[in-house]
């Protein structure tokens, strides 16, 4: 993805819930953006001339069945508690703000067959699930959907989803229904050969996968959107020592971003722990590493001799790298 970003501009911004705002993005030259495939996401860089923050957002797409093509891209951003990327967007991004966007990527997509579809969205995960629901309705595929949230008022697009899916949609509001939905019972009710698509907090994804495994579903019958695992609430500042210099990494940034900003030459591509290009040998670290990538094997992770700069962090506040 590196070097393939293009200049874009924020067109509009509107609040969806207390913590979630919707932002529409257009190309800076005013030409139309291509319609993204259902479930696609974009890598967004924002917060300065070269983009100080990098985040992945699902492309929500049109909200109803009548507007077949929008020349812009729609994302929804949930504000987190600490002053990080999403907080920056909520504070500073307004119509006219310049950002950089990657081409749309769509690894989260409908199966090629016509089998039944079960959609499970948790919280802000609705942004990846809504376009899949819309695609199922338009393609007349058999679909059911569960949308889980803390309270109805906190659930973005809840009315749009109900209008799109009608009776196929069940809204589970944890405040009024006092608790979690029974995923195992939900999966057990589905017709044979159903594929489940889930997007939401890691616990929801893992819960769905476990329930499916217990019911004997093949692993390929649960598809989930891989979130960028680079950022956690508890992240602390880290100092990276390499080649005789020290680089400060603030909690909202990755090691990779801080090294790039400091002018240290690195390799990277996917920036979400997939490709392995940014894996770097560790010279010295106190304690172990919170490995968040999917590239290293479990043994390699236990060895703590290498780290994926794009997403992983030491649990301590200092690390020495052999770049």
């Amino acid at each position: 993805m590196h070097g393939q970003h293009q200049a874009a501009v924020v067109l509009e911004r509107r609040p969806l819930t207390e913590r979630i705002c919707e932002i529409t993005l257009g190309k800076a030259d005013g030409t139309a953006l291509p319609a993204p495939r259902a479930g696609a996401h974009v890598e967004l860089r924002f917060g300065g001339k070269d983009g100080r923050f990098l985040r992945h957002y699902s492309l929500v797409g049109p909200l109803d069945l009548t507007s077949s093509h929008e020349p812009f891209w729609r994302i929804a951003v949930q504000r987190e508690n600490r002053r990080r990327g999403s907080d920056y967007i909520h504070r500073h991004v307004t119509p006219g703000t310049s950002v950089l966007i990657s081409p749309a990527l769509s690894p989260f997509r409908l199966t090629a067959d016509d089998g039944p579809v079960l959609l499970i969205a948790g919280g802000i995960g609705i942004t990846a699930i809504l376009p899949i629901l819309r695609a199922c309705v338009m393609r007349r595929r058999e679909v059911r959907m569960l949308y889980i949230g803390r309270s109805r008022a906190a659930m973005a697009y809840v009315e749009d989803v109900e209008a799109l899916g009608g009776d196929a949609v069940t809204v589970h509001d944890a405040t009024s229904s006092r608790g979690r939905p029974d995923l195992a019972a939900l999966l057990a009710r589905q017709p044979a050969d159903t594929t489940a698509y889930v997007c939401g907090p890691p616990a929801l994804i893992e819960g769905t996968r476990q329930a499916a495994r217990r019911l004997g579903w093949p692993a390929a019958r649960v598809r989930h959107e891989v979130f960028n695992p680079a950022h956690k609430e508890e992240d602390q500042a880290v100092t990276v020592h390499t080649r005789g210099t020290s680089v400060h990494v603030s909690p909202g940034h990755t090691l990779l971003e801080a090294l790039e900003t400091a002018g240290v030459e690195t390799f990277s591509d996917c920036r979400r722990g997939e490709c392995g290009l940014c894996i770097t040998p560790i010279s010295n670290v106190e304690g172990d590493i919170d490995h968040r990538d999917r590239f290293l094997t479990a043994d390699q992770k236990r060895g703590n001799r290498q780290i994926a700069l794009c997403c992983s962090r030491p649990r301590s506040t200092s690390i020495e790298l052999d770049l």
Partner: protein
Amino acid sequence: MPHANQAIPLDEEAIFDAMPMEEEGQFANHATPLIRNCWYVCARRDEVGRTPISRRLLDTDVVMYRTRDGRPVAMHNRCPHRAFPLAKGHVEGDRLVCGYHGMQFEPDGLCAHLPAISHVPANACVQTYPIADRGPLTWIWMGDANLADEALIPELPWLASSEWGSVTGDFHIKADYVSMHENLIDQTHFPFLHPGTVGTPEYARASMNATTEGDQVLIHRRLDNAPPPGIYGKPADIMHKNVDRTSEARFVSPAVHMAHARIFDPQPEPGKPSVYGYYITHCFTPESNHSIHYWWFNSRDYGIDDTDIDAFMYEASMQAYYEDVEALEWIMDVVLTDNEAQQFELSFAPDKPGLMARRIMHRLAMAEHG
């Protein structure tokens, strides 16, 4: 979709009335963005098999193959890793294997195996396109996949029917699909560009009626008591007599033009039919704004197993279509290279059916590209 039925009688006097150009840019031309939300022919059905093939369609290189159970698959012919053309790889089971580093892709475009690393990266995927077989042809949808309803594939039942005999051929043409549509729906050029085959001097004056049906344009023509054109008269062996003739030409979609002709012999000889039916099917798909893939079929409802008629129909069709191909390529060359004067085109009343089709294409293109 509202049906705007609009009858436009055309007569000789109207020929000199210039077609009013209401607003500039209302008609599609070679520079209009290609219409993607449409089923286009991508191959003859038997071309797509277990060995991947590639073809450039609407500016995109597409690779096509079949799974073990015969389902067609279409993907972007470009490995997301280092742009290796996937059609240069091979098919293993249902997967397409890149010939450069062995990345394997499932029919839904997701990477299933990457030999160089120990896991499958979730961001490795290839764009796929809806694809479906109908009769002797395979169709593809290069636009918004949510709109790819297979019920929208044009019905061409005579191509797969045992009651009809067909000859078929194909061309790659360095011309735009808009001009091709205008050429096919414009019958006033027949006597001049195709004097030996489809055009007769009498036919240029045949009554004509053009209407729109939704996003289709339909022309009816009728000519009574005149000699048949060679392409229909010779194989039926009725060149020596006068016949009645009706024809219907239809702009079906940006991908298809078809014609239905019937020759009525008022005094058939014993044992011979009194009506001869023909369907002429033109399927074409833009390769780019300036080039097309073209498949044609000439189908008849008599002498369907007669190989002499096949040979004649093939030769006569090829001659006529070659004349069109040559003309369209000359025109494209002028349009693209002649910058001496401002580009312009005059239109006259008989051009109205072609302009109706171009107006529909313009509207469809603008609806997609805003």
